[in-house]
């Protein structure tokens, strides 16, 4: 039960992110929700690759005879983090443009003002 706590943390992160996406109207808050879901996915990938008592898969001055964690999920998480940074920057830029054009960040009001 307590051994599965990392997976529960993933569920908490995903749940908070999806709650934000469904119930919040502010565009900045929606961006925060998307980032939370991203981080939950990254944490899930990392926890999938963990071995008990293992060290990072790097041979430079590693302790002898200790197993190493799975490297592939870590590599994929690295990819996902960089893509997350790029998409977050794009989302925030579009939010800035929307604020400049409509004067508000509320998605409902944006829809109501100009078709």
């Amino acid at each position, binding site marked *: 039960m307590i051994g599965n706590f990392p997976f529960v943390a993933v569920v908490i992160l995903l749940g908070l992110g999806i709650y934000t996406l469904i119930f919040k109207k502010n565009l900045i808050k929606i961006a925060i929700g998307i980032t939370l879901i991203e981080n939950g996915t990254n944490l899930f990938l990392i926890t999938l690759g963990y071995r008990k008592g293992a060290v990072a898969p*790097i041979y*430079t001055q590693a302790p002898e005879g200790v197993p190493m964690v799975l490297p592939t999920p870590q590599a994929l998480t690295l990819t996902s983090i960089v893509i997350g*940074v790029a998409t977050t920057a794009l989302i925030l830029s579009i939010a*800035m443009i929307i604020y400049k054009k409509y004067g508000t960040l509320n998605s409902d009001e944006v829809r109501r003002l100009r078709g």
Partner: protein
Amino acid sequence: MKEEMSRIVRTMTTLIYVFIMVYGFYVIAHGHLTPGGGFQGGSVVASAFALLVVTYGNQKTQDFLQKDLLSLLESTGLVIFICFAFFGLGATFFYNFLSNSGSLFGSSATIGVNPGNLNTGGTVTAMNIAVGIEVLAALGVIVLTMSQASETIEKKEK
């Protein structure tokens, strides 16, 4: 918003900026030996750029770091990365043709735990440097563009 922060912050930023840059390039260059790599090191260097923007304001940072140069660096990094991928085309795309060949980055590593040799890794090391240049330039362009745009929007509202 004031354009510049106080003298204490400015002095500390000029001191720390050098160390952040050196640390970022260390992480890029040792990507095949220690935790890190092109992406992480590039992000560290770009965070130094963000520190400059926060401390000195947008205008002075733009004079110091030309955005066109960063844009050029970004394209150059990506082109070098793809070129290294194409050079291995004798076997496959992304073939590691430099490793264990004895040339630059080509000495073979001792198997097992070792203190690390900088001249190993083959195309992994070269691609690390190329991607590091690309990421630091890309994130720098993002930081500079967004800060400049937010400043312009703020000015227009007044």
